[in-house]
């Protein structure tokens, strides 16, 4: 586990670790990890919760529903592999939500949850996906904005 102390780490993805087969890691935007969070907007601007909800549902985008139960009753099937995300906006500060979407392995190396904004350190990525992140910086922010709305009072 990471220390909770304020360790400010500059993560320049193009230089981080073995770049494996993905040569375009340098194209990613830079972000700062502080403790278990990423305090600043990845896209430089806040996300839109409505778009974030759509990204969470879309199978070829966030597909959060593949693993998580969420307060989205109009969708029939919800996964049971990860924790229920109802109330996650009350449990986790925004910066931690952002890190969990960008690369949850920074907080928990053993997690099976994919990193949605990462291209380095992966094995045998399919040709169509090499050098690409699952979500764009703005989509990450949209999902973060949506998750923030999932508070205990909703």
């Amino acid at each position, binding site marked *: 586990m990471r220390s909770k102390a304020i360790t400010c780490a500059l993560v320049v993805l193009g230089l981080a670790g073995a770049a494996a087969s993905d040569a375009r890691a340098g194209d990613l935007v830079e972000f700062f990890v502080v403790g278990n969070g990423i305090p600043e907007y990845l896209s430089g601007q806040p996300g839109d919760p409505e778009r974030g909800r759509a990204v969470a549902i879309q199978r070829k985008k966030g597909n959060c529903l*593949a693993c998580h139960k969420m307060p989205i009753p109009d969708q029939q*099937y919800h*996964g*049971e592999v990860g924790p229920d995300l109802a109330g996650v906006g009350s449990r986790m500060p925004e910066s931690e939500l952002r890190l969990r979407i960008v690369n949850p392995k920074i907080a928990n190396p053993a997690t099976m949850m*994919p990193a949605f904004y990462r291209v380095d350190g*992966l*094995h045998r*990525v399919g040709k*169509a*996906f090499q050098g690409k992140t699952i979500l764009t910086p703005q989509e990450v922010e949209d999902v973060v904005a949506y998750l923030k709305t999932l508070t205990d009072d909703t």
Partner: protein
Amino acid sequence: MRHLGTAFLGLAAAGLLAAAGAVAQDGSTAYGDIMNDPRIKDHIVGDKHSGFVYATLATRDMQEDDFENPAFTWVSLGEELWDKQDGAMGKSCAACHGAPESLRGVSVVYPKYRESTGGMAALEHIVNECRTERMGADPWKWESDQMLGMTAFVKLQSRGMPIDVSIDGPARPFFESGRDFFFQRRGQLDLACNMCHEDHPGDMIRADLLSYGMGNGFPTYRLKWQKLGSLHRRFAGCNKNIRAQPYARGSDEYTNLELFVMWRSNGLPSEAPAVRR
């Protein structure tokens, strides 16, 4: 982790289904009341569960009735090919093997170490070895109707017999290679086989109920494919789902993975040709 209630423990020894996290107190799942079906007890051996245990009742019905099971279209083709002369030597399968019943028990030990190549051979490799070496015929493509029909027909002769692959002696390094594959994260989604099929059987992943990923039903008629398909086709599909580069069917990588997966299935009854979602 969630644990099961005691409602259906009469069907299985305590703890057998402990990993089946999605199962409610009354045995129901998003797939219906599948855990109270008395048929599942024949598909649970020790702590091993066949994919049958995670199939819907309708899928189980289809598998158990040879007239309803669509895989039998391919089985009939395999039966025809068994007696058909092919290749330069003018032989059929029957010319050497006689009645197909003579192969009872043969398929459950594959993949098996093969001296001539110094590697593992799946049943498909052996069929093609027979065709090229002993019949003078062209090999069949891995996923061809002929190969699927022949492997389904041969495996049908061993239906109900326990899977019994060996990982000893010369098979050991290939087993280890298959095991390493199983636990290796891969693809853009960075997932290893075990994360779904060891850690989460019985949990839904969106609209799919995860199983242990056993191999005892292959070749399997998959409703999604509307076709009979090989275990290697299933591996490639899983790899593509996690956005990983698949390997070729019949490759050493998938054959070694098959050995590992079949070793996990040891003791479960051979169900080929099974029916799955």
